[in-house]
């Protein structure tokens, strides 16, 4: 089963929750950091890295001797990655989405596949769990292509155990990319007006995926009760509440996994794990029932 830990608003505690779940998880596990722009999970799980490889995407390279400046590629490209200026075809590799259209179209075969570095993919072990992360190259604008390559390394069947995905914040393409292959989505929020607003956006973005979803309310007791109220109205189960406390915040600031460092929180995360696993099982039984 694949579980994505996501949130609309940043800084609500996705990494705290993912690291703590990894610490208490009772089945074979792969912990994955798909927040490739700002990956943080490794700072808490301290994995022993066994491999680090650069990741690339395909971009066109020009053989100017063959190019007749017909402009067919530039007219076709939806991302303005090619442009005819005077007597040259200019390539803007950082704009390229790697669709391969120009390569397929060029009547002179003047464009050949090259590559752009997206970042790195790191693999290792954190305790008994397998660990996987992507790290976007600073200056690279597109995170989804790197995320897709990290996701390609995930175990394909349940035999290999479960997967916990630490997702990027927000509700646009990177966040959707992180959650779309999950079986269950865990939305982490906080009981503040910003937390509520971005939680609503996340529910709106992820609900059409039709996956079981539950909420984790972090720093409960800090702001107001409107997130809980919204969950009741929308019938989104609250799978865990982590009480607001300065000692939890300080523990996090020391790089500790709070489920280990704060004894009273261990039970909260065990209960969360049980609810996530229950939702996954119920959803499979539902599918079997409907079939």
């Amino acid at each position, binding site marked *: 089963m694949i579980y994505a830990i996501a949130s609309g*608003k*940043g*800084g*609500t505690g996705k990494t705290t929750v993912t690291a703590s779940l990894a610490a208490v998880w009772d089945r074979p596990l792969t912990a994955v950091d798909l927040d490739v*722009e*700002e990956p*943080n999970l490794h*700072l*808490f799980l301290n994995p022993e890295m066994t491999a680090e490889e650069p990741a690339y995407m*395909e971009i066109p390279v020009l053989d100017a001797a063959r190019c007749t400046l017909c402009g067919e590629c530039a007219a*076709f490209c*939806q*991302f303005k990655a090619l442009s005819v200026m005077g007597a040259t075809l200019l390539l*803007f590799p*950082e704009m390229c*989405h*790697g*669709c*391969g*259209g120009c390569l*397929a*179209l060029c009547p002179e075969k003047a464009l050949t596949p090259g590559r752009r570095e997206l970042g790195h993919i790191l693999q290792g072990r954190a305790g008994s769990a397998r660990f996987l992360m992507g790290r*976007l*190259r*600073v*200056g690279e*604008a*597109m*995170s989804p292509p790197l995320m*897709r390559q990290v996701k390609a390394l995930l175990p394909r069947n349940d035999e290999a155990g479960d997967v916990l995905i630490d997702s*990027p*914040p*927000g*509700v*646009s*393409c*990177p*966040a*959707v990319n992180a959650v*779309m292959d999950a079986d269950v989505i865990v939305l982490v929020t906080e009981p*503040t*007006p*910003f937390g509520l*607003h*971005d939680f609503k*956006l*996340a529910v*709106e*973005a*992820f609900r*059409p*995926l039709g996956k079981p979803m539950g909420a984790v309310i972090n720093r409960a007791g*800090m*702001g*107001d009760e409107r997130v809980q109220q919204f969950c009741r109205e929308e019938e989104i189960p609250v799978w865990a509440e982590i009480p607001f406390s*300065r000692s939890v*915040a300080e523990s996090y*600031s*020391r*790089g500790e996994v709070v489920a280990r460092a704060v004894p009273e929180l261990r039970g909260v995360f065990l209960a969360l794990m049980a609810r996530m696993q229950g939702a996954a099982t119920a959803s499979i039984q539902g599918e079997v029932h409907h079939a």
Partner: protein
Amino acid sequence: MREIVVISGKGGTGKTSITAAFAHLAKNAMLCDLDVDAPDLHLLLDPDRREEHAFRSGFEAAIDADACTDCGLCAGLCRFGAVRRGPRGWQVDPMRCEGCKVCVRFCPAGAIGFAEKHCGQWYASDMRFGPMIHAQLFPGEENSGRLVALLKKEARTRAKELGLPLIVCDGAPGIGCPVISSLSGASLAVVVTEPTPSGRHDLERVVDLCGHFRIPVAVVVNKFDLNLQHSTEIERYCRENGHTLLGLLPHDEVVVRAMVQCRAVTELPETPFSLALREVWDRVANLAPQAPARLSPFTNKPNA
């Protein structure tokens, strides 16, 4: 005209609360919310929307099941795994479609349509501290970088018309497409961090990003008293790398209290937090008085 962009790398460090206070303290500023994916600034400022515009950008492929001859060529060509076998034959998954047009161009039956996408709305508003440009990307949509570029262009044009010398922008978390777009042409990046392993890690990456595009950086450490060791090390990092340290803000519940009351934190009775934040603003106001370098991240990249 000066353009200040508040960013953080890590989410939830306090960008929006600090930007709202800047808007309160600044005189003659245009405000701009560039976190188009999860914008929150309007929650504190209650803008009165004077104009509303549709944001259309990019296209999406759709297969006409009646015209499809089931050859499957499109599925083989799509690099994004967006063409999938559904109950009614081949279908394009809109969540995966990048709008590249390859399937449309090569479909032998001409069975694939290509419609422009309505990705969100943007607004020109007035609020109690002045004019504001903001937007909402529809949940799950893409092209946030293009929307950010559009908002910046509108903010500049309108600031010029109104004779406003300053644009204050709230940015998105991360270091990807919308953040790169928000840095384009900025005079100063104010980076808000916190004294945690994540805060420090993400600070260094977002500062590197600013260096990549040659944007000057000034740093604010929020909740500095949560971990004095990390705070001291952030101070040292700034000193050693030549970045201005604008100030240290204490962990203070007044930030959440202001949020619940829909107020900028500096509008509430004074606390140590708001006093420290006023000092931060005074330093920002005295920094980078020069005109911004009109660099585009996409064309002035010192190719890595």
